[in-house]
C-alpha cells in the first residue's frame, strides 16, 4: 500500500498519530504537499462524507475525522502556503446571535477547510455586525447556522443587516442547521442551503462557480 493510501485510510479510520507520521514519511519521500492534500486527505474526507450520507458513519465519526484533519492540516498548511496554494474561496461561518450550539457548525467548518477553503470561524452567538466585518475582511461566503427555532429568526435579521450595509451583492449567503429547511432558506433570501457538511461544500463550490 502506498503512502497516499495509508493517509487516506488514516483519515477514514480517525487515526491522528498515523496520519501525521505518514504525512511526514510522504514529505521525506518528496511527495508534494498539494498531492498529499488532494490525493490523500481530501479523498479520505470525501469518503468520510459519503459514508456519513449513506448512514454508515455518524456524528462521532465526523468529529473524529475533523480532529484527524486538523492534526494533518497543522502539519501541511504552512507547506501549502509556501507552495503558493491558494484557497478556493473564503468562508466566514458562525452560529447566529442567541444560539450557542456549535458541533454541526464546527464539522461544516472542517469540511470547508479540508476542501481548500479559507475559514473564518466566527464562533457562536454571532452578532450581524461580525458577519458584516467578515465580508469587509474578504469573506466571499457567509455560512450561517441555527439549531433553535427561537434563534432561526436571527438568520433573517443577519441577512437584513447585510443588505442594510449594502454588502448583499458582494457575498454568497448559505444557511443550515437542524430546523432550517430549503423553504425557510428561500423565504429569508439565502443563496443556498445544505442539510449536512458534505453537501454544504458541494453547494459552496457550485455557488462560487455560478
Amino acid at each position, binding site marked *: 500500500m502506498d503512502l497516499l493510501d495509508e493517509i487516506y485510510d488514516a483519515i477514514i479510520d480517525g487515526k491522528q498519530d498515523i496520519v501525521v507520521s505518514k504525512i511526514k514519511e510522504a514529505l521525506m519521500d518528496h511527495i508534494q504537499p498539494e498531492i498529499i492534500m488532494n490525493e490523500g486527505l481530501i479523498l479520505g474526507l470525501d469518503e468520510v462524507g459519503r459514508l456519513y450520507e449513506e448512514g454508515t458513519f*455518524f*456524528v*462521532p*465519526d465526523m468529529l473524529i475525522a475533523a480532529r484527524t484533519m486538523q492534526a494533518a492540516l497543522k502539519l501541511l498548511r504552512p507547506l501549502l502556503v509556501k507552495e503558493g496554494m491558494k484557497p478556493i474561496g473564503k468562508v466566514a461561518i458562525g452560529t447566529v*446571535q*442567541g444560539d*450557542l450550539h456549535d458541533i454541526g457548525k464546527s464539522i461544516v467548518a472542517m469540511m470547508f477547510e479540508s476542501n481548500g477553503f479559507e475559514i473564518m470561524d466566527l464562533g457562536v452567538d454571532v452578532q450581524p455586525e461580525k458577519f458584516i466585518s467578515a465580508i469587509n475582511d474578504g469573506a466571499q461566503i457567509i455560512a450561517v447556522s441555527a439549531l433553535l427555532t427561537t434563534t432561526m429568526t436571527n438568520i433573517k435579521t443577519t441577512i437584513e443587516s447585510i443588505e442594510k450595509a449594502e454588502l448583499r451583492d458582494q457575498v454568497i449567503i448559505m444557511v443550515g442547521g437542524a*430546523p432550517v429547511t430549503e423553504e425557510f432558506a428561500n423565504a429569508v433570501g439565502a443563496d443556498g442551503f445544505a*442539510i*449536512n457538511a458534505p453537501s454544504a461544500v458541494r453547494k459552496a463550490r457550485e455557488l462560487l462557480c455560478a
Partner: protein
Amino acid sequence: MNSIERMKKTLTHETPDRVPIDFGSSAVTGIHCSCVEALRDYYHLEKKPVKVHEPYQMLGMLEDDLLDELCIDVEGICGRNTMFGFPNENWKEFRTPWGQEILVSEHFNTTVDSNGDILIYPEGDLKAPPSGRMPVKGYFFDTIIRQPQVDEENLDPEENLEEFKIISDEDCHYLRSELNRVRNSSRCILGTFGGTAFGDIALVPAPFLKEPKGIRDVAEWYISTKLRQDYIHTVFSKQCEIAIINLKKIHDVVQDGIDIIFICGTDFGTQRSSFCSTSTYDELYAPYYKQVNDWIHKNTNWLTFKHSCGAVENFMPHFIESGFDIINPVQCSASGMDPELLKEKYGSELTFWGGGVDTQNTLPNKHPDDVYNEVQERCRIFSKKGGYVFNSIHNIQANTPIHNIVAMFNAVKDYNNNHQN
C-alpha cells in the same frame, strides 16, 4: 372516565374515552414560562407570576387552575434538585430579559457578563464558575462546558460518576412531600427522579456540579462513544448499579404513588440521521436500559418513559427490546418519522407521548388553522386503539403565538368532543 382511568386505558393500548393530554408533567413535555403566562392571561385566570420550576429551559409551572382549564391528565413529581443542582424553595421574584416577572428558587443566582449574557451558578454558588449561560435575546440557558484537560493515559471513569450517589434521607423526605402534594390529585402521576439517564448529553456536562471532572465536553463525549467504549461501559455499569439501589429506595417511598417513571432523555436521533448505529445502541446502551426496565417491571407497577429527539424510527424495535413502554417526543419532522408508519409498526408495543404538533415550524410560524388541522390529523393517526398521549413535539418554546397554542388545545378538545368513546 377520570384522568387516571383514561391514562390506564391508553397505556394498556385500549381506547380511552378521549385522547389524554399532558403538558407540564416533565422537563420534556412543558411550556416556556412566557407562554404559561400568556395562557393564563388568555383564559382570564388569576394574575400571578409564573413559577419557573425547571430553570435550565425556563419552563413554567402549570398550576391546578390552568391544568383544569386545559384538561390535562398528567402531573409530575420530581427529585429534589433542578438541573443547576439546587432545590426549588423559597420562591423569589425575578425579572427576565424579555420583561416577564416570574418566581424562581431562592438559589437561582445569576450575574450579567460584559456581553449582557446571564450566567447562572451550580448549587446557586456565586463563588463557583458559572455553569449556564442565557445569551442576550435568548430565552433559556445553555450549559457552559467546563472540560478539564483530557489526559488520555489517566482517564478515570470514577470522575464521570460524581453525580451518581445513593439517594439520601433528605431526598427521600422530599419525595414524601412531593407525594403528599399530589396525594389527592385526580391525574396520572409521572415521576422524574434522575440517575437512570445513560449518556444524556444535557447531563454529561453536569451543570449541577461545581467542578465537574472526567469527560464533560459534548464533542469529547460523542467521540468517546466511538473511541473510549470501555470507559463508557465502566461509567454506565457503575451508574446502573447505583440506579437499581436507588430505585428500590424510591419504590419503598413512592410505591404506587406514581404511574410512570421517566428513565432517560438521551437523544439518539438528529434531524436527518442518528448519533450512532443501532448496533452501537445494542452494545453500549441497551444492556443498562434493560437492567433498569426489567427491575422496574418486575418490582413495581410503573411504566417506563424514554425520550429521544430526532430520526429514531430504526431505533424503535431496540427501544421496545430494551423494555421501554413509552416513547417521546415523537419528532415527526425528523427523517423517517412518518406518523402513520410509526403507529402501524410500533403502536401496539409503544405508547406515543408527543407527536401532536410540529414545534419547529407549524406551531411557532404557521396560521392557527394550520396548527388546528395538524393536531386533528395527529390525533386521528396516533389515537387508534389507545397507546397515545397528546403533547406537542417537545416543549412549547418562547415566542410561540398564543393563538397558535390555543388553536392546538382547541383542536384536541374538538377532536375529543367528536370522537367520544
